[in-house]
């Protein structure tokens, strides 16, 4: 297992290097320029443009820019074109908001996915199953931004609940509980919308896996031995059915910090997704380079963790 992990890590480093090259060129070859003052500004002279280019190495050939960016990234000196601050600092200050949103979204999609999947499997073929299935497919098919917009319009029209950012502004909170509930609400709202697709997909996985397990010989044996329906279902079948759920956790890792551009933008939530989105619009190359690198590394790491977890929960799998 150790050799497997080492070999995979080695391959990942090579892959990461290739990904960084490709993503760097895609980023920098996109038309547009990172001028903070806009392109058509009569107040800006060529000298100012030149000085700006020089400061951020934009006057060098692309391969040199790549090298300089990578060097600065690893030494922690890489600075954003937008505000001249270290990119890693800009990313780090978004982490608390991003992680709390995504952890809640993941918890919601796992718990509700499990609930709906088990419920559907238990009533397989009957009306509750059909209804949850239809609902699941609808939610898988509906785009997240559309659901978010509906939620937003509904809340604005029919309630006076605030929805943007991470807390309500301009008022005094009566007590600490109200403050914390307000904060929680501002995370829960986007997290709910973010998790809807996950809940639907998760419930389908669990249901399929559950129904398959229920057909296994050992389940029949358990029934034959006279075990209670509940015991067989929840204790013996469920344990073997949640394997996809556990191994899927590795795949969630990049999502944990990757964030969602659309949901964060709609709810004006200060997460990493918006940082990345705004960096694209502003052509903030250093920020994009760092973000791409981190997300790519997390995807590779997540895959590795998934594979390892698979071997841990399923004794039939051996990694070599």
């Amino acid at each position: 297992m150790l050799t497997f992990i080492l070999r995979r890590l080695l391959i990942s480093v090579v892959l990461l290097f290739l990904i960084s090259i490709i993503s760097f060129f895609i980023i920098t070859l996109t038309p547009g320029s990172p001028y903070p003052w806009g392109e058509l500004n009569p107040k800006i002279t060529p000298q100012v443009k030149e000085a700006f280019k020089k400061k951020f190495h934009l006057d060098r050939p692309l391969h040199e820019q790549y090298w300089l960016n990578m060097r600065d990234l690893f030494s922690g000196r890489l600075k954003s074109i937008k505000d001249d601050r270290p990119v890693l600092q800009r990313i780090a200050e978004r982490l608390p908001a991003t992680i709390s949103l995504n952890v809640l979204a993941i918890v919601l999609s796992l718990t509700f996915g499990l609930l709906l999947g088990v419920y559907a499997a238990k009533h397989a073929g009957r009306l509750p199953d059909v209804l949850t299935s239809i609902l699941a497919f609808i939610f898988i098919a509906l785009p997240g931004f559309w659901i978010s917009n509906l939620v937003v319009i509904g809340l604005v029209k029919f309630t006076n609940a605030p929805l943007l950012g991470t807390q309500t502004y301009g008022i005094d909170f009566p007590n600490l509980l109200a403050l914390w509930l307000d904060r929680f609400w501002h995370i829960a709202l986007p997290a709910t919308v973010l998790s809807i697709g996950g809940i639907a997909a998760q419930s389908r996985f669990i249901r399929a896996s559950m129904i398959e397990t229920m057909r296994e010989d050992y389940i029949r044996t358990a029934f034959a031995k006279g075990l209670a329906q509940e015991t067989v279902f929840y204790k013996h079948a469920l344990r073997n059915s949640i394997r996809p759920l556990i191994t899927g956790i590795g795949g969630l890792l990049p999502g944990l910090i990757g964030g969602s551009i659309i949901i964060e933008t709609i709810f004006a939530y200060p997460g990493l997704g918006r940082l990345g989105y705004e960096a694209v619009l502003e052509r903030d190359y250093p920020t994009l380079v760092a973000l791409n690198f981190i997300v790519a590394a997390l995807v590779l790491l997540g895959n590795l963790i998934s594979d390892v977890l698979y071997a841990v929960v399923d004794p039939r799998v051996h990694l070599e």
Partner: protein
Amino acid sequence: MDTSLSCATVIRSFIYGLPALLLTLIAVAFVSVSLLSTKKKNEMSIGTLGEPSTLNPIQHADAAAGEVLAVIFNGLLKYDANLEITTDLAKSFTLTQTTTVFFADTNAALTALLKLQSEKSRWQEWKLNSASIREQSLILELGEPGMDVSRKIVSLFDATTLAPLHIVRVDLQEKAAETLEAFRGTSAGSRIIREWTESSAAFEVTVTGDADSFLKELEKFLSTKADLKARAAMVQTDQFLAEPEVVFSLRDDVRWHDGKPFTSRDVAFTYRAIMDDATASPRKPDFLYILRLETPDAHTVRVVYRKPYSPALSSWMIGILPAHILEGKPPEWWAVNFNRNPVGTGPFRFDKWKTNEYLRVTRNPDYFNAPGPWLDSMVFRVLPDQLALRLAFETRQVDFWSVDPWAVGHFEKDKRFDLFSSPSSSYTYVGWNLRRDIFQDERVRRALAHAVNVPEMIKYILYGHGVQSTGIFTPKMWFFDPNVHPFAYDPEKARQLLAEAGWKPGKDGILEKDGQRFSFTLITNNGNEIRRDIATLVQDDLKKLGIEVNIELYEWAVFLKNFINKGSFDAMVLGWALGPDYDQYQIWHSSQSNPEQLNVVKYNNPEVDKLLVGIREEYRREKIIELAGLMQTTIYRDQPYLFLYVPEGTSVMWKDSYRIHRPGGRGEWVDTPVEMTKAGWGYYTDWFYRPEYADLLPK
């Protein structure tokens, strides 16, 4: 048996219980936030689109930062409610000029002085305060900067006795100051009468007498420093040196937010910081005309300019930086410390910046315009787009919102809101690329102006919220000429003009001239629906005259890179959003039509070129109005653009959420509802108050 059943029960209750728990929590949170009191803090909340880049007045270039900086920092000058220059940190300022005329010898200078003495009666008209002689030069002290009077005076003297001045510019790789220092030691170097270092990569020197020998010696000297790759060139020859001077006397009652007094040292430091390459200030071009800046005492700043350049005065609206905090600190330190935690002199102190969420500033009790501001704090909410801004407004999380034209009607009908409208300082146009043969004839361009129904465009695209543009300036600028009349929609006149220019209908109904069809491509950027609609209306109107227009849309970056910056297009729809600045050299001067420059349509009119240069040298208000009017009239007549409209900006506020309580002119207090000024609804921010907190106002 029992144990495994209870185990199943535990698992089951876990599966059902956990979601139920979460659901309950969310429901409780929802109820809690819905019941939150609506009693607002004494705080103004403003939505900004996008995150400010930096809170440094000399380094920012984005509108979002500008909004926040306006309440934290002050300049020496500012715009008043009518967009005219007035004082801020400066108590007052005076404008004078020293003109120096060089002569071949002292005798000639004396003769000139005598000539001048004989014209003493005209001194007052010239605003000439004194004239004196130093060595071979005549020094004139004028009470008003500008070139006109100096030229008039110099024309009185015998031209053959004048020693012309030459300005030589040296561009090099680095070490400009050191190189200049070394050169001054040479024999040619001793001839320098004025020097100026632009940056580490350029300096300029002024000499009199024989320019060729000086240039030769300079080149010889530079060739000894081969590694600098220096190039010397003569940039200008003149009859005299005109050096305007602005003296600011500063307020002595201003304190920085940390309690330290504000002095002339801060102004001098700000100037040096702007000029320093390390700060990479995009505002540097505004300050390049300064020859030197002196601080005779703690509350006086003297700025001497290299030549008359009146737009430079408004550059002193730039926020002044605190020298006692920043002096000696490297720009990297600024970026992570000061620029995220600024200290200014303004009505509000910086409090907190939560990235991509909000910036908060709190009342400065020590503000020099005390007792204001009335608000305890202001919050700038960083929102990603117009939709979020609108949601924030509707949920009362921001107090103001600027409404799109199509939505104005909806808000006007709604009794819950107050609306303020005023013409914006931007205009939208169709630019004809004058590099193309079909647009060369000005009769054709005038025909196009008659052919497009602009009033209809305003009616259907702006829902009536705009006025027809009559040229390069917008109506709320003080130098705008209201006597320029817009081209009327008159297809008959258009047809007639086109026929005069030789365009006849061809076989397919499209106009033709010398075998060329009148067909062109109109481009604009994708994602701007208004510009797309304009293109469609232009296409439709011109089709009626037998002109074929093909519309193409491109993504903004591609649109600029492949078409606008290269000047390779037929016609385009674009807009300008310009400050109240009469200097439009970069947009209209014929020298500015190279790739990446802003005269993208390659407009070339020597008469306008002269006006553009002349207005920069002019300080007299009525003259500026005259020249600006002439410029506006001439360019509008030439129609290099089809000037379309100046849209109206409309802001909406929840009814009665603010009022204004401000000092009137004569020591009394004026209490008014929020009102729109030429400078926007937010001009009196210092004096905004919430009616529910009216008891905070002075009795």
